[in-house]
């Protein structure tokens, strides 16, 4: 693709194509989009965050990440669609325009680029990072168990050969440490929306404990609104609730860490499907998935914009 208009949103792309897409989007929209390199992956790939901002300094921001589990290809594919949607809608869609006039949107399209590259070259079903584990022949850490929130407790594994290996210490993975450092330095992030697949769920904290989040009522109501909006497009049914109740106990995960940092609107999505295809969701479902998910994201972002804290 020579421009982001030519980019094939209805197909899966290798990492270089996604990086090119990001650069094109920045070049085409210099007053709205910029690229921040927040760090490097273990294998030296840049960790790019697209910043959608209409100006101001250190505005409140909404963080969206996709591609933390590399085999969940639908998530970066949806991320590309979201990025284009934001530039298309700004100035045209009143709700999104109002959000961007007050807040920034930060989008990390591929949180785990080494793993993503590995799924395209060596093992389509790879989930973790690609850092070797000393003393083990097994490679990689589950980046969604590596956060400092109930780290090391039930709901993750201490075995490097397991898919849910938490790593030796919290934030041991550069892919995670880079986000943590960036968010702490930013200091004004109001939402973390971490996007996974599959199973069609919208989850809020906590995953590592059955204790209710202090904002549970609001998070629950907002989740209900978001999944209702999502379902309005194609009727896709989501379940929603706290992670530990709806899916399983998962310690050291992104949204629990974010919530414990005081970022109230912390959600994880599990995108399509309910289990016909799992991680190999056909490419013809990328755009429908992105479109319906966008409705839920907008519901959450509009609520945040109207309820700044």
């Amino acid at each position, binding site marked *: 693709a020579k421009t982001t208009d030519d980019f*094939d949103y209805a197909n899966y792309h290798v990492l270089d194509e996604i990086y090119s897409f990001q650069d094109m989007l920045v070049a085409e929209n210099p007053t709205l989009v910029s690229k921040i390199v927040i760090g490097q992956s273990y294998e030296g790939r840049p960790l790019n965050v697209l910043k959608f901002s209409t100006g101001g300094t250190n505005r409140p921001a909404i963080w969206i990440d996709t591609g933390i589990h590399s085999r969940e290809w639908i998530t970066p594919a949806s991320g590309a669609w979201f990025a284009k949607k934001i530039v298309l809608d700004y100035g045209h869609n009143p709700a999104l325009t109002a959000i961007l006039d007050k807040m920034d949107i930060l989008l990390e399209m591929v949180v785990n680029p080494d793993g993503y590259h590995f799924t395209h070259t060596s093992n389509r*079903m790879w989930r973790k990072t690609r850092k070797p584990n000393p003393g083990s022949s097994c490679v990689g850490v589950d980046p969604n168990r590596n956060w400092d929130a109930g780290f090391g407790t039930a709901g993750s594994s201490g075995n490097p050969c397991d898919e849910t290996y938490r790593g030796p210490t919290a934030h041991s993975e550069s892919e995670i440490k880079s986000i943590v450092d960036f968010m702490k330095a930013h200091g004004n992030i109001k939402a973390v929306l971490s996007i996974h697949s599959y199973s069609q769920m919208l989850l809020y904290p906590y995953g590592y404990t059955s204790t209710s989040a202090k904002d549970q009522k609001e998070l629950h109501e907002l989740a209900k609104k978001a999944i209702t909006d999502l379902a309005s497009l194609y009727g896709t049914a989501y379940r929603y609730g706290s992670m530990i109740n709806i899916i399983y106990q998962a310690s050291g995960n992104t949204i629990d860490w974010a919530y414990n940092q005081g970022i109230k609107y912390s959600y994880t999505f599990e995108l399509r499907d309910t289990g016909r*295809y799992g991680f190999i969701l056909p490419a013809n479902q990328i755009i429908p998935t992105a479109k319906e998910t966008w409705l839920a994201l907008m519901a959450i972002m509009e609520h945040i914009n109207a309820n700044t804290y």
Partner: protein
Amino acid sequence: KKTFVGDQVLRVFAKDEVQLTVIQDLSEMKQLQLDVWRGPTDVATPMDIRVPFHSLMSVKAYLEARDVQYTIMIKDLQADIDKEERQMQRSSYA
């Protein structure tokens, strides 16, 4: 390049708490080299597991012996991955 020829993804249904424990035990049997796509959480939610070809007979026998229901969600994972790769190549040429 790792292939998944003959690997299947099974959807396993627990009808009660006893069967839930049975499939939780299954998911922890390292020697079977199972890849749990969706874990056993409660009776209402089925478990999806990728079963390597060499473990298929053992897993199915284990489930059937304990009267645990399952369906084949993906019959040959590599066939679907090949299809995905062909689609990406076609798109790239286009």
